């Protein structure tokens, strides 16, 4: 995994509790902006219900780990911190694995090996290292809730694209017209890459449209004028 430091230093004195909560949902969305925790984003997003279950289970692990890590943040020495965090996360993942097997067996079966693999999710460890290890319990909890919500949102977005195109349904409900031929490829492994690629592409296009710089047009103009002049010349030539 890559421990990518978040764009702004977390735990800045100026940031309020609301900002801690909202940061993960949009501005630093873990899936769509930070690109953390990619494996589940592509592996289990073949339906919205799976994506949602995965988001909730990851959130369970992340929030509880954030609480424990921020509680013991002054006790843990710098050298052994990552090992300690991994151990805490692994404990909660094991708990989540057992609990989900007991209470939501269908989701547990569908997600398979990807529940134990939450341990290796860069997002969970990354937030402990970047935020919970330096902030109070309350703010770490808020950050955990925000990041989990953002992660679930990202997963569900990819899941929506894949399920609508791949099976013509959304959350099990039929949304496409009956003569729609499902794109089977979106349910298969390549669909994970393609579906997430489509979501990122749409997001980039939207960002570009929103933040299109005004001077760009002035730069384009001479080239445009030149081209139209040359096409005019060609047209004239052909006319002649």
């Amino acid at each position: 995994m890559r421990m990518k430091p978040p764009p702004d230093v977390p735990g800045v004195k100026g940031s309020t509790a609301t900002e801690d909560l909202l940061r993960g949902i949009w501005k630093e969305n873990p899936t769509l902006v930070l690109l953390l925790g990619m494996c589940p984003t592509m592996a289990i997003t073949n339906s919205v219900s799976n994506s949602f279950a995965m988001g909730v289970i990851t959130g369970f692990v992340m929030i509880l780990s954030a609480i424990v890590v921020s509680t013991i943040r002054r006790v843990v020495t710098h050298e052994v911190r990552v090992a300690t965090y991994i151990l805490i996360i692994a404990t909660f993942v094991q708990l989540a694995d057992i609990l989900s097997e007991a209470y939501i067996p269908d989701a547990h079966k569908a997600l398979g090996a990807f529940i134990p693999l939450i341990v290796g999710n860069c997002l969970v460890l990354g937030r402990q290292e970047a935020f919970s290890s330096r902030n109070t319990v309350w703010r770490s909890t808020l950050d955990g809730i925000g990041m989990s919500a953002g992660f679930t949102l990202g997963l569900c977005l990819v899941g929506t694209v894949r399920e609508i195109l791949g099976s013509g349904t959304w959350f099990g409900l039929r949304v496409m017209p009956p003569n729609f031929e499902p794109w089977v490829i979106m349910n298969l492994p390549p669909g994970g890459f393609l579906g997430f690629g489509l979501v990122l592409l749409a997001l980039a296009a939207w960002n570009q449209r929103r933040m299109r710089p005004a001077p760009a047009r002035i730069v384009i103009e001479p080239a445009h004028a030149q081209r139209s002049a040359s096409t005019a010349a060609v047209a004239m030539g052909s006319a002649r």
Partner: protein
Amino acid sequence: MRTHVWIFLSAMLVSNFTLVMFLGLCSFLGVTNKVATAIRLGLADTFVLIITSISATILNKWVLTTAPYLRIVSFIIVIASMVQITEMAVKKWSPTLFRELGIYLPLITTNCAILALAIFQTNRGYGFAEGLTFSIGAGAGLTLALILMASIREKLELADVPAVAKGTATVLFIAGALSMAFMGFAGLMSAT
């Protein structure tokens, strides 16, 4: 012998860890800019996979029989310490190799492919020899995927990609195409 060949091919091609099972995507998307780096990372991954497979077999046989609920915790501890020991050993015996691998060596700890190998091996009930074949196959598949991706991305440097699609989106579409190509190997399954 036939079983071993089949385990190897299945781990390397039919259910390729990166392109079909979506494991170890962080390094797959993050550090595949150069072929040389990709090869080195692939070999380091393979080495750690082999060590993990051996440790997982030992743990399953003698430690986890009485306490299966400690599986995830004990696997991750063993993997983390194994990577740490490997790192120290490499640093001591071959400083050149250590410098070449750089940051990738410690990062292997949280590569989910490593933990997944230990879990799959346990779930499928592989013994020592089968586990070893499985880990070598998985490592070969990982290296193959990394090299393929890095070669395409080296060529992509010169291509004219629309500004919107630059970056991760393009890489994901390439990965999708590679993944589609690897789905063709599913035909091997019916051959045996």
